[in-house]
């Protein structure tokens, strides 16, 4: 009996040690990021080769906030931040509106071509992003030349691009959410004299708020984080944070302190949105992955 309980206690200790180890592995890069953002430039450029005894350490020798104050000095990070805000918010609004309409149609009407459409929506998610990039670039160039309406390096071009990337997942997720809201609810509203759109707007919409919010946040974050297309299709007018942050490292030298401070700043919008919506996003991800 006693041996059993001591074995159990040893098991508890092992369990907590394992948990602690996982926590450390998860947190290590964040600790390095915060540490780097608080270090002085001298510490970030020297090693014991140049300054004897100077080894990289977790604790900054003389913590400073200068990296945060200077975050906009060598790289126009605040401008990039503003670009990302416009593009991500635009994507969020357009993608949510379009996917809500499409998901409502898929959930409520047994129209011809519904299954074909759903499958084609899912299929686009499997294709490599790079497949679209070259045609995109050339089409954008062609449209600009022929019509004089620029798409490359414009907000509209980026919002349009990201909206379509956000659509497949948003449509599928909202459709399954709307399927959970009984049909009788809209029917009742329409019997009471509502039009189809009013029933959607006033009755279904409020019930679907959590699903809509999850989709909205998903599309915002997509726009905020995307790297491949932003690296080719954005320029001076629209450079986003995801790509602009790499400007801290140049051929002539690296401003790691500035980059780490910028990393923290550009994580904030994403962290806030995830915290607010954590439950729904995780549910959506997990059900999306398990249902295929």
């Amino acid at each position, binding site marked *: 009996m006693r041996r059993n309980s001591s074995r159990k206690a040893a098991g508890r200790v092992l369990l907590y040690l394992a*948990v602690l180890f996982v926590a450390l592995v998860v947190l290590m890069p964040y600790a390095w990021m915060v540490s780097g953002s608080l270090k002085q430039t001298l510490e970030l450029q020297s090693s014991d080769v140049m300054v004897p005894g100077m080894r990289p*350490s*977790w604790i900054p020798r003389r913590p400073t906030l200068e990296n945060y104050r200077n975050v906009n000095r060598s790289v126009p990070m605040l401008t990039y931040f503003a670009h990302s805000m416009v593009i991500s918010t635009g994507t969020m609004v357009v993608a949510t509106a379009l996917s809500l309409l499409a998901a409502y149609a898929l959930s409520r009407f047994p129209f011809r071509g519904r299954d074909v459409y759903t499958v084609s929506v899912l299929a686009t998610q499997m294709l490599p992003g790079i497949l679209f990039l*070259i*045609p995109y*670039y050339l089409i954008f160039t062609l449209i600009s030349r022929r019509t004089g309406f620029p798409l490359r390096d414009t907000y509209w071009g980026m919002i349009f691009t990201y909206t379509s990337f956000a659509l497949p997942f948003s449509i599928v997720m909202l459709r399954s959410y709307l399927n959970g809201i009984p049909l009788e609810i809209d029917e009742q509203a329409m019997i009471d004299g509502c039009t189809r759109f009013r029933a959607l707007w006033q009755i279904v919409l409020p019930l679907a708020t959590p699903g809509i919010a999850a989709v909205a946040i998903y599309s915002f974050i997509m726009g905020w984080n995307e790297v*491949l297309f932003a690296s080719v299709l954005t320029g001076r007018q629209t450079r986003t944070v995801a790509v602009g942050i790499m400007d801290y490292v140049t051929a002539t030298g690296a401003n790691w302190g500035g980059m*780490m401070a910028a990393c923290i700043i550009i994580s904030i919008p994403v962290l806030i949105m995830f915290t607010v919506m954590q439950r729904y996003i995780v549910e959506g991800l997990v059900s999306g992955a398990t249902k295929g």
Partner: protein
Amino acid sequence: MNRRLGAGLGRHRTAYIMILPAVLAMLLVHYIPMLWGFYISVHDVNLFTMANWTSAPFVGIRNFVAGFDGSTAIGARAFRSLVNIVVYSVVTITAGYVIGLAVALLLNQEFRGRTLMRGLILLPYITPDSVAYNVWRFIFQSRIGILNRYLVQSGLVAEPTVWLIGKSALWAVVVASVWKGWPFAALVLLAALQKIPQELYEACRVDGASSWQQFWCITLPFLRPVSVTLILMSILWNFNAFNQFFIMLGKDPGVAAEVPSTLILREAFSNFNYGIGSALSIILMMILLVITVIYLRVLKGTAGSEEV
């Protein structure tokens, strides 16, 4: 039940109106560019012809042949990039799955702070790629990165290693990708673990099965369907991996760490060979399609034999 809402095509006008904007958007951004991609891949679109690329000369499958031919410079690099991405994917997916499963089993235990831990493991997953991989790039710095300090201190390496250039670059990216990727596997597997009925374990224990036997006979079979989807998704994602390579290694990672997506980007946007770039992306897509089909076929086969 849906019948009541109307049966005829005309009565679904509202549905078509509602779905039209989404269809148009995807048509313009997915389907039409894909067709243009095929067009570009069989034409010689490069720096000189791109201004009027719609009238670039037709070259048939020459771009594809260049991508497959190991004796040409681009063909050799394309082949090498495929080898690299296979090595990268196999290691990243295996490590991510094993670690994800181990942590899922751990977090499926009762202990204090479990909810907190479940929130914590989400962190790598939700951190933007641009943040996570830049931080890892900083960790891997040879003189000022934290990793080399411990390697040197512990005597594992004699002096600071340059990780992000040359052969070791691929492994640096693998480490960062595993760190970023395992939480997704852990989340999905944890959700599946919680759906296993506890009575099964109790019945097993009554029969005197060890915990290893329980894991082997109950847990793993239950996780199988989820794992299959998870691994297929991981293959598709990892074969397309771009962000981690581009962010950690830059536009020119060197042959030893070049993967298809960075090679295509370079070929198209640094060397201005849009035609070859498009052909390479189509080859990549074909490979992914083949993997998907084989994987699903194999799966169907084993699922069928299980039922028998």
